[in-house]
């Protein structure tokens, strides 16, 4: 299992400045929260999928489809039970509560897919320098990008350790979910120890290369907001403003739903 989502492609979205992509991601979150009517939220989901299509990253949907479907099903069930409305639909479930569940499912799936597209089109180095250019202290940005980079390595270490334990007779695949989790817990210790053991060597390697030696830091990777970024941000800002205006005028609201 490789948790890295980045897809190395040369598309319009890949070439955008990482800060632009961060603003788009944040804007997409806001956009997803503007409406409660599922038809409007479907429109938001279409916008997100359009970005996915333009960036050729929809292939990664195959890796998270299970989560998206689980979220959709359980959201609909949860809100059908806890919400209430005016129109009887099925047994004790009211139509408005059911539809609100659909809205929440669309909202969550849209934000998750937006996050997936961000990670699929942005390299770790770009995340780090994007954060620094946004005013985040370098050491914090370094910790974030290093953590992102190390996740696949640690997952690989975990898999190696579990294979080693399996070869010694540990059965990790039988039993219910609780007992399977219980069997995985002892594997956490070697994963932790193997990873944390490298801290001192890692720190010395960083310091030998001048990490933190001076306050003014230069970067190998250069990023700049170009005309393309400004255009995309302007179009998205207009879209967001238009959606907010629609909502203020009373469109996109689900009527009849209450808790």
């Amino acid at each position: 299992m490789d948790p890295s989502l980045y897809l190395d492609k040369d598309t319009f979205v890949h070439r955008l400045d990482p800060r632009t992509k961060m603003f788009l991601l944040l804007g997409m979150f806001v956009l997803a929260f503007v409406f409660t009517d599922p038809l409007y939220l479907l429109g938001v989901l279409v916008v997100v999928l359009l970005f996915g299509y333009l960036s050729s990253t929809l292939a990664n949907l195959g890796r998270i489809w299970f989560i998206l479907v689980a979220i959709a099903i359980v959201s609909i069930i949860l809100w059908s039970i806890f919400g209430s409305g005016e129109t009887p639909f099925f047994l004790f479930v009211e139509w408005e509560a059911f539809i609100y569940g659909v809205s929440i499912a669309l909202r969550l799936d849209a934000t998750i897919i937006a996050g997936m597209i961000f990670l699929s089109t942005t390299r770790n180095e770009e995340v780090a320098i994007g954060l620094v250019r946004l005013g985040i202290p370098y050491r914090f940005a370094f910790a974030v990008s290093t953590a992102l980079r190390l996740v696949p390595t640690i997952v690989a270490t975990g898999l190696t350790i579990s294979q080693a334990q399996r070869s010694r007779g540990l059965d990790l695949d039988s039993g219910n979910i609780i007992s399977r989790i219980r069997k995985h817990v002892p594997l956490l210790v070697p994963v932790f120890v193997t990873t944390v053991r490298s801290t001192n060597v890692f720190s010395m390697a960083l310091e030998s290369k001048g990490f933190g030696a001076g306050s003014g830091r230069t970067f190998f990777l250069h990023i700049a907001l170009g005309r393309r970024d400004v255009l995309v941000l302007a179009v998205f800002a207009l879209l967001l403003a238009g959606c907010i205006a629609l909502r203020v005028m009373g469109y996109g609201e689900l009527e009849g739903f209450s808790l």
Partner: protein
Amino acid sequence: MWRHTQLVVLTALSAAIYAAVLIPFKGFPIVPGFIELRPANVFPVVFGLLFGPAGAWGAAIGNLIGDFFGTLSLGSAAGFVGNFFLAYLPYKMWGYYFREDENMEQNVNSGKKLAVYIAVAFLASTVCALIIGWFIALLRLVPFTIGLISIISNNAIMAIVLGPVLLLALYPRVKRWGLLWTEIMEPEEVSASRLRGVGQILVWVGGIGGAVVGLVLSLTGASPMGAGVGLALIPFLVVILIGAFMLGGREQVEAAEKLMESETNETSEV
């Protein structure tokens, strides 16, 4: 903290370990899009006690990275803050429960230390659940009761049942490698405790009080989510924040220095 390269690296490693163990379980949602089965929740409290501020930042960043793989939403902002507190409170509160001349190593090798561990892990789990539950209820995403109970149980069960075992196994190794936060940081770098007794009381009152008030509002149907429960819980969150600032932690670094000195003296005498 950020001037120590070791702590920067520990922040990254803690975040990576937390995210790496969180991600495989994204497929087992409890409240889809927000809360899933999280065996990895054993880590934040242990990270906090061992690595101090680096563990707290690591828990916050690791949770955010994990969120990108199935639970990313505006609620992730609360997840960042909540997980920070899940690791921050145990390390800040630990020293208060021990006398100055007492061994206050962040381990669970005595009955008293185990009791302190359980208490702070439970409170940190409650505060984390309160912050996340409040925010997602304010955004009208999930009713407060569901958010609070599922997050507390997820955090507390993992931290209380599995945490002591993990801490017992890891503490000696981390100490041998010189990676405990009390060994890396100097006393003057850690804030001195100002009225830490008051700080402890404020955090306990804010955490438990907020959870109870939120549950009452939610369960009685007065305000299961939205502005009602959102506004009602703000004073409790402010109280937690003020209390957290008063906790300090310098006494733990000073105790670790004394312990190291006495161990060095013993070795040289031998």
